[in-house]
């Protein structure tokens, strides 16, 4: 028994890279998950960008916006409404709060307030959290002013003709009565102060479904394609690679063939996943088919190259299995495949830009939530980044494979 134990441990130690990965993998994954989700709820770490447009440009509107500046969870940028809406449409910012002309007058006259929140359709889940921050600041600020005006108005109408001292006492009574009977203030907040919020583009698909489908599809695709990259290592192990290298095929031809097979498989896998999601979850595919297909091809290329690259830097299938689990889970976490990126600290969201998952998921949000056309530069940027990922990783993979061809044979 001890001989078996010793032999097994010796075999493990011999494959140092696999052993290191096996030991380091859980530590690295714990670190990545902790960094990604440990910051949840810490306002200072997780600022949400909010654009504001002050069309009223009054003292009241300026005071309201100053109040928002002090909310730690929000990073406020002032911008004219047209540009702001355009930025939100393209997903560059989450939302814009517009204070329309007449805001100050409405506060004074206790009329319905002309303010609205327009948000990125792809971030409707995030909006629910953002609304809490905005509401608590705005209602605290404007609400106080409007309550005082309401008290004064009621006092003046109910106690008209009385001397100023009596009116002051009456005002205090009215205020106390209103505060004890919160219904009046609630009614004001629900109706007069209600913020109209709507996405900048009409939503056709549920953001949660898009997140779930795109996130899962890209992550699972990476696992499949890494396994396909591993087939080259399998061919090395069973001697068929050597035989292929003896044939008139060139090294480049062999690798290109493998890459094409991987991309074809990836395209089919993604098409099946999205068709299933369309049938079962009602994801609207048909009017956006060309854009979906373009993004699928770009994603397939990037993920295939990623799989080939991982297979090129390892020396055995055991090593590939450990490394791919680590790399894919890490990329999936930071890229937003497992949970939406906005739940992570802002610095982690920036780190997510190195992940294929991020660009692919955002591309699918562009199509399904932001309703961007195939020609929109914002959508094409994501396609371009994915192709760039593919080119860099496949070039590196090809070079590494060529370098290792002799040892493969």
């Amino acid at each position, binding site marked *: 028994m001890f001989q078996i134990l010793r032999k097994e441990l010796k075999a493990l130690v011999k494959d140092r890279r696999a052993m290191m990965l096996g030991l380091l993998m859980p530590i690295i994954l714990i670190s990545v998950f902790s960094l990604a989700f440990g910051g949840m709820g810490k306002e200072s770490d997780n600022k949400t960008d909010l654009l504001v447009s002050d069309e009223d440009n009054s003292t009241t509107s300026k005071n309201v916006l100053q109040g928002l500046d002090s909310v730690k969870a929000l990073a406020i940028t002032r911008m004219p409404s047209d540009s702001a809406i355009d930025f939100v449409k393209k997903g560059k910012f989450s939302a814009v709060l517009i204070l329309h002309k007449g805001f100050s007058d409405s506060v004074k006259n206790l009329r319905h307030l002309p303010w609205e929140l327009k948000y990125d359709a792809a971030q409707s889940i995030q909006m629910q959290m953002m609304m809490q921050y905005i509401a608590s600041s705005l209602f605290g600020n404007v609400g106080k002013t409007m309550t005082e005006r309401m008290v004064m108005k009621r006092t003046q109408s109910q106690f008209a003709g009385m001397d100023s001292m009596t009116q002051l006492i009456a005002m205090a009574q009215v205020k106390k009565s209103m505060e004890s009977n919160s219904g009046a203030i609630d009614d004001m907040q629900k109706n007069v102060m209600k913020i109209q919020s709507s996405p900048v583009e009409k939503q056709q698909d549920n953001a949660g479904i898009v997140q779930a489908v795109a996130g899962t599809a890209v992550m699972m695709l990476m696992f499949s394609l890494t396994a396909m990259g591993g087939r080259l290592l399998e061919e090395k192990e*069973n*001697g*068929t690679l*050597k*035989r*292929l*290298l*003896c*044939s*008139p*095929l060139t090294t480049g031809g062999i690798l290109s063939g493998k890459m094409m097979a991987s991309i074809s498989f990836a395209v089919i896998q993604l098409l099946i996943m999205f068709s299933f999601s369309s049938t079962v979850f009602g994801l609207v595919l048909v009017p956006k088919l060309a854009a979906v297909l373009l993004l699928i091809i770009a994603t397939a290329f990037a993920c295939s190259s990623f799989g080939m690259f991982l297979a090129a830097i390892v020396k055995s299938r055991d090593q590939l299995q450990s490394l791919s689990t680590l790399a894919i889970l890490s990329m999936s976490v930071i890229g937003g495949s497992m949970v939406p990126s906005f739940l992570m600290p802002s610095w982690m969201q920036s780190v997510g830009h190195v992940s294929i998952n991020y660009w692919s998921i955002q591309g699918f949000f562009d199509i399904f939530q932001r309703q961007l056309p195939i020609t929109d530069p914002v959508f094409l940027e994501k396609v371009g980044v994915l192709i760039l990922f593919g080119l860099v990783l496949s070039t590196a993979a090809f070079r590494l494979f060529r370098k290792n061809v*002799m040892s493969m*044979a």
Partner: protein
Amino acid sequence: MIKVENITKSYGKTQAVKGISFSIPTGECYGLLGPNGAGKSTTINMLSMLFQPDSGQITINGMDIRTSTADIKRILGVVPQEIALYEKFTAWDNLLFWGGIYGVSGKELHTKAEELLKWVGLFDRRKDAVKDYSGGMKRRVNMACSLLHSPKVLLLDEPTVGVDPQSRNLIFELIHQLNKDGMTIIYTTHYMEEAEKLCRRVGIIDSGLIIAQGTLDELKLQSKVNDMIVIDCAHTPDEKFLAGKLGIDVSVHENTATILSSDSKKDLSKIVNTCTEAGYEINRIDIQKANLESVFLKMTGKQLRD
């Protein structure tokens, strides 16, 4: 047809091939004989163009492997040491794939695949997955896959490793047939009897060098060994003692002493007396005519073992 001139190959600081030269005329079956690690596979890999020699030159059919790689690969068939087949595929699918890689297609490919499967006796099993075949059957398919493009030169790298005697004989017959049909063959092995049976000439390779080459008779002459006396003792005899006393080449493996003699009639009584004096209990004495094994032993001081 094949000309190898002073080729060398190193892996890091280890020189695997130290300057090998040989030439093989068209239609000859040439054997490369040597123990594991002698440099046979490195030589075959250079001939297969898996990598280039560090120095020296190889020409096949008048074409230099450095400049005419693609052209040479089309006339070259390689039967690797490994069973380099897709085990989940059927034999038929394997043949179609490997034929296709060499540019054979359509009806020609199907006809050739059918011919070859019949030739190796596996046409009836063509639809079975290779993983369900015996070792010998896999070896036959392995060979057939290298012949679909009708190569002019066939490199066989230990093609009978791990096969049963029946399959081994069948493979010998197939190789004989190919050679008879005019194919030039290089056959590497560490089985003496295979090289003796199949090859007209043999190159003995050891430690990265060809230490002798020629026909069996030529090698016998070079080694000056005519007989091989094999003595089985009850206990392991002392190799150094016997060699010192007899003054001729002795090799001991376990309880068996192999003694190379230019004249067994002259040496036999001296050998028996020496063993008796040393107290070795002799169980059996076998006198064999010189063969490749004795030549190899004489030239390298090593025995080839399975």
